């Protein structure tokens, strides 16, 4: 790992590139990061990269940003982490800013309205599909499903704040699964 003076700049450019081409967010970004960081630049080994994902996956925030920060730190310390995170965020910031400018001016156009009347129900379908995939990958059992259902009801019926349900379930997990491991 050669650490030249322009290392943070190189990291920034690499993650800017990664951030520019990963449509769909999250997991779509991982193969691209792997190709750039492990295969092209050889900044990390395959194993180190997989470790990074395993760790950052459990932290709050977008996976891509967390992964960029973590990988950036391992390549070039604090400056590397900040360059990587900034590089990964910047493309979507610029693109959405451009869209926000443009979209507000065409939003009232009747054809645009019809297009979005059609797109909105599709968004519901995409989220429902993602939900099914997540349920499958998590594994269906009574404990998991009861927690999911309880959170759903707390939000919809009792108007709980999502952050509160996260704190409750994290604490429950801490006590419940600790006992399970000791038993």
């Amino acid at each position: 790992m050669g650490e030249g003076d322009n290392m943070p700049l190189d990291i920034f450019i690499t993650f800017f590139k990664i951030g520019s081409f990963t449509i769909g967010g999250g997991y779509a970004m991982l193969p691209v990061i792997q190709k750039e960081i492990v295969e092209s630049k050889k900044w990390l080994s395959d194993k180190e990269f997989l470790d990074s994902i395993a760790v950052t996956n459990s932290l709050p925030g977008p996976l891509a940003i967390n992964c960029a920060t973590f990988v950036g730190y391992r390549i070039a310390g604090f400056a590397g982490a900040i360059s990587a995170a900034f590089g990964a965020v910047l493309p979507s910031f610029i693109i959405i800013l451009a869209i926000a400018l443009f979209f507000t001016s065409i939003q009232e156009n009747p054809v645009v309205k019809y297009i979005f009347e059609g797109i909105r129900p599709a968004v519901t379908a995409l989220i429902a599909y993602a939900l099914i995939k997540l349920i499958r990958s998590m594994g269906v059992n009574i404990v998991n499903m009861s927690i999911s259902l309880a959170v759903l009801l707390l939000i919809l019926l009792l108007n709980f704040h999502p952050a509160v349900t996260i704190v409750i379930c994290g604490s429950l997990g801490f006590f419940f699964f600790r006992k399970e491991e000791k038993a």
Partner: protein
Amino acid sequence: MIALIKLFLTFLKVGAFSFGGGYAVLSLIQKEVIEGNGWISAKDFIDIVAIAEMTPGPIAVNSSTYVGYKVGSLAGSAVATFGVVLAPITISLLVSVYYNKFKHLEQVTWIIRGIRPAVLGLIAAACIKIGKASIADIRGALIALLAFAGVYKLKLNPIIVILISGALGVILYGIM
């Protein structure tokens, strides 16, 4: 100035609790941005999710930039985006520094095992709320069913599904 501080703190909160990535952040944004502050309407928010689906970058970042722009123009979008990534970046940095200690913390595993199913509940709640706001009549229900069949059965790319649904919107709402 006060609006910008409020924007920053709101998205700081959204970022700090957005476990599980992607769609998990939707219900946090619904609660804070739509129900709490009324910065954008439920329909505007669904449009942002659709746009996020077709553009690079995480949904959390995309929506913070968009909402920030609506509330406070360029400064607003910068403040909101910085707010949403600040906690994740700080926490990732701390974990990077103390990686060897963190790696062996089984407490983290226990907490995550509790949070993971909760995230599913959050996404389900977001899906139901978005469904209520987006499926207004039989035409909407038809598009939702077709879109679901498209991704589930035909394994179509979500972007293709969104484009087709937009065309269906023009046909069903504009022409018929």
